[in-house]
């Protein structure tokens, strides 16, 4: 058993531009998927509130199916059309799926296990993994959830294979070990349609930007 100690999510619609709400200085290398994940994770962790456990005991488990695809398309496009010497090296990590969970660890200082699972049910798989980490004592708290985000190429591709109107979203729960002093906090998910709530979470992400920027360039 685990206690849910936080929740945050964002399903902003494709016209939502993270850059309009967030000073991207320092966060520029992050993919759209990472940016959405940061917004939802900040809300789930109630950033900048203290972490629910010591940093070394806080894990990240991220589920996704497509987070790396659009960065891969773009990276490959530049490499082939402009030449491999002209690709921006800071865009390479986004091609590797686990970079998204890596950025969450860096942004929020989560130093426990950092896990990425992929698949059509990856969000649920992430919660399952999180529960296992808690049960086996590998972490005392887990930021667990999923993200999908699409650029033009993937959005069109999914429509063509009959996936309807693909939804972008990021959603996280913070799970804590039962009986370890965690209370059962009320769930306070973001209002799906509330740009105000989303902007509030973005404020939180902005607050950690300074910590990231000196190292990410």
């Amino acid at each position: 058993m685990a206690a849910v100690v936080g929740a945050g999510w964002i399903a902003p619609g494709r016209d939502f531009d993270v850059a309009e709400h967030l000073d991207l200085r320092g966060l520029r290398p992050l993919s759209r998927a990472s940016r959405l994940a940061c917004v939802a994770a900040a809300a789930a962790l109630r950033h900048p509130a203290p972490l629910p456990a010591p940093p070394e005991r806080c894990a990240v488990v991220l589920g996704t199916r497509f987070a790396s695809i659009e960065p891969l398309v773009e990276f490959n496009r530049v490499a082939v059309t402009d030449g491999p010497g002209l690709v921006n090296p800071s865009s390479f990590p986004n091609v590797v799926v686990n970079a998204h969970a890596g950025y969450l660890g860096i942004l929020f200082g989560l130093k426990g296990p950092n896990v990425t699972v992929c698949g059509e049910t990856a969000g649920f798989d992430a919660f399952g993994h999180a529960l296992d980490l808690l049960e086996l004592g590998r972490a005392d708290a887990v930021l667990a959830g999923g993200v999908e985000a699409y650029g033009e190429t993937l959005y069109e591709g999914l429509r063509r294979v009959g996936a309807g109107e693909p939804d972008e979203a990021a959603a996280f729960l913070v799970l804590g070990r039962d009986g370890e002093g965690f209370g059962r906090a009320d769930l306070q998910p973001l209002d799906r349609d509330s740009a105000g709530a989303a902007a509030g979470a973005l404020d939180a992400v902005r607050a950690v930007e300074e910590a990231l920027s000196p190292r990410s360039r």
Partner: protein
Amino acid sequence: MITGLGVVSPIGADVETFRTALLCGKNGVAEVESFDTERFPTRIGCEVRDVALESSVEPRPGRAALLAAAAGRQALAQAGLQGQNVALAIGTTMGESCWLEAWDPADVSAGSVPAEELVRSGPDQVGRDVADELLLAGPTTVLAGACAAGNYALGHALDLVRLGRAETVLAGGTDAFSRVAFTGFARLGGLAAEACRPFSVDRDGLVLGEGAAMLVVESESAAAARGAEPLAELAGIGLSGDAFHIVSPDPHGSGAARATAAALDDAGVEAEEVGYISAHGTGTPANDRAEVAAARTVFGPNGPPMSSIKALTGHGLGAASGLEAVACVLALREQIAPPTWNFTSADPECSWDVIPNEPRETELEVVVSNAYAFGGANASIVLRATA
């Protein structure tokens, strides 16, 4: 218990050939044939050549899945298993990026998206295709743990068995030689010009590789019920995050040290019991220094010998820690630690006994294998000899 091994690597497409290469120093490095390297600063890589990759699945899976399926067949055969009731835990870095790399991006516009290839390019496709190729009926988990993916998969297999969620798991890692990965590492200045020389003062980077390694991990009772011989015990797993930098390791190796310490704790063994460390050992100065710093933290200044087989195999990304796990099982079986080939002279900043250029006969009861990935994700495993 580990009851089956399978390897498709640049230095051998079966366990025996792989084993011989590790001990004789047969190198997998050659000029890249998969694509034109004219516009790159280096031309070498470690590719899997002269191996027919069988498939019985339509549409034909990508190279990462086929490499893993070939390794998986070997492991299942050794363990005496058919696919039924076998779970799959597989790690990969690039997924099936081959599909995307095969397009001409000039055609990539909203009007000409090759949609089927697009949705088949992700890591998840590897899991589906390997399960289909091998007719595995258990649950499939794809762990995108990048350069530590093999250890993530093995760790997940251990947890599945411990928690009683599965009796038998086929676990390991795979990646196909990727132009995108080659480009990325080249732009990060991480590719060696001529050779991979882990821990040598004159090393200048990694050599990109490919391949797959799969292991059968199962409960002692499941192995005993079939009469399968336990080759070694997968005894513990430790995971940690650096929370430091997206591509650079924490130079103090504190996250790496926590992963190793957690794995030892998970296995219930003391640091003094460890007889050999299979290093992540990519051949980059940043890795070597962080890794030796981590070893000093966990084992003290006179810890066990540590070597990197990447001098021969190159960096197989998701396959790497799978190949290294197989090397560890072989080391425990034969009581011979594989050396770090290509070693010239020690870097004074990270001096350690790296078993230079010659296999070492030594008493091995417990070994550790480390893997570190982009995002600062660290995964160590502990393996123990069976009686």
